[in-house]
């Protein structure tokens, strides 16, 4: 937990109690002095990041949110596309200053990178074909040994799928797109992914796929930084500010659509460290 990770503990404190930024207004944010920040981004995780087919440029929640954060912190974002497979290690090795890819905060990952405070709370859901009739819940799916689940290599969704049906019935693809494609093609019968991303895929393929069932797990998403990075505190501060003034909600509104409402009250105090309870202030 945070006892082995003082930085995370300190920063989580920052976000909730504004200890290091007592005034709580924008004037109190750290000034990064125009610093260039390289941000690893996959460009393959709807709606957080993707390449806009009209402009051939990166777009999505991560771009909009980080652009706004950097305006407030006076930094210059430099988005660099990177494979999800290996992204955490690359950040841990210092290849990038940070990474944004809807990364679920987990204790294992926190051993190699520092997380920002959670900026959104996400449910993991099942994406299935629209005409799916063989099961209506994750348990029914798990009970039928013929059915398979698809997910992406190295995601918490993959871990969830494995805990649900065992590794033998899970196919881990390079990108979520492949998994959804496999779902549509019939190779797999469900894809477990974050609800936000699921919304994104449903939006693009409403004729083919739908979300099914309840939340399988509810997790915090955060940005990741190399261990000991100074940027953690700065981003925690700006996340707190944007939560407070509602600007984070409006960015989310834009990308997650009407059907998805986020209640920041739920997550305001919930950080990764709180899940281990010991470090909660």
């Amino acid at each position, binding site marked *: 937990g945070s006892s082995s990770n003082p930085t995370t503990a300190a920063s989580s404190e920052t976000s909730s109690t504004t200890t290091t930024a007592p005034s709580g207004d924008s004037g109190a944010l750290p000034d990064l002095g125009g610093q260039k920040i390289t941000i690893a981004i996959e460009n393959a995780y709807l709606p957080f990041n993707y390449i806009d087919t009209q402009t051939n440029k990166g777009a999505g929640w991560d771009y909009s949110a980080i652009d706004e954060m950097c305006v407030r912190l006076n930094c210059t974002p430099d988005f660099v596309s990177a494979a999800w497979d290996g992204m955490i290690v690359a950040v841990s090795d210092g290849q990038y200053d940070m990474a944004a890819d809807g990364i679920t905060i987990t204790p294992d990952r926190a051993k190699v990178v520092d997380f920002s405070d959670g900026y959104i709370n996400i449910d993991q859901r099942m994406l299935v074909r629209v005409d799916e009739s063989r099961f209506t819940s994750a348990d029914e799916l798990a009970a039928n040994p013929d059915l398979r689940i698809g997910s992406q290599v190295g995601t918490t969704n993959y871990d969830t799928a494995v805990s649900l049906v065992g590794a033998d019935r899970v196919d881990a693809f390079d990108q979520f797109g492949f998994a959804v494609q*496999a779902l549509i093609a019939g190779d797999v019968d469900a894809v477990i992914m974050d609800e936000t991303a699921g919304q994104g895929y449903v939006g693009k393929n409403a004729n083919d796929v739908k979300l099914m069932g309840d939340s399988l797990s509810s997790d915090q998403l955060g940005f990741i930084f190399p261990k000991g990075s100074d940027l953690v505190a700065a981003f925690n501060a700006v996340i707190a500010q944007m939560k407070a003034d509602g600007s984070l909600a409006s960015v989310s509104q834009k990308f997650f659509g009407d059907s998805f409402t986020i209640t920041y009250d739920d997550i305001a105090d919930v950080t990764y460290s709180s899940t281990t309870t010991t470090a909660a202030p």
Partner: protein
Amino acid sequence: MGATQHEVWNISEILPPEERDDLDPWWDRFPWWAVMLGAVIVLFGYYTFFVESYNNAWRFIKPGIKVTVVVTLWAFLFSMIIGLIAGFGRVSRNPLLRNLSRTYVEFIRGVPTLPLLFFIAFVIVPTVAPWFGLTNKNISKEWRGIAGLALVYGGYIAEVIRGGIQSVEHGQMEAGRSLGLSYGSTMRSVILPQAIRNVLPPLANDFIAMLKDSSLLSLLAINEITQLSKLYVNVSFQPRETYVVLTFTYIVMVLALSLVLHRFERWMSRDRAGAR
């Protein structure tokens, strides 16, 4: 996957010294490289089995060896079938067969294996499956991967077969025909038995190349060793350990397969021994 990999390890080279001035001392001719390479392999192997973080990776990856082997064997079997058909097509006297085979071979040559695997798995298979009354769902990703590798290597093997047949001296066909044997008879009794031997070394190389290219099937989420390595890196965050183990695993597999194929080749051409 490299072009010249087709000259994979030739085990026998380790033994006879390269052509050199015969006054060079023994240590000059000695295959130190084999010792050095062996040392690297032993070092990697030591880490793999006796250093805990590496050994954890090994235990995670190990089940994938069977998948790699099984997928490679099936794919090689099918690519041999395809390659034989297309290879005989290439030297057939029927212009339609000849040109169809050639088109297939040249198409395969013009596209990289990875996009070709995607093309086969995501375009060809879904298009063709219904013709045989199959739905997409009947064809697992393993079979799509095998089909992909088999179609790609079928093209390469077709060229090997053609080359083997055409490398039999033209005089052999003429000698057969001059004795009154028909074209088909000469083919069967004279050309093919010789072609088979010519074909073994390049086929062995293709077999090894295919073992190596089976790593691409990780992109289709087939749980062979490369895919398992990727999965392991994502839970352990230890790329160094994982890829050292993966490299070790492949190099040992390739070496083992080379040895087996080399023996097989020697056994097939045993009555050539004692040549004058």
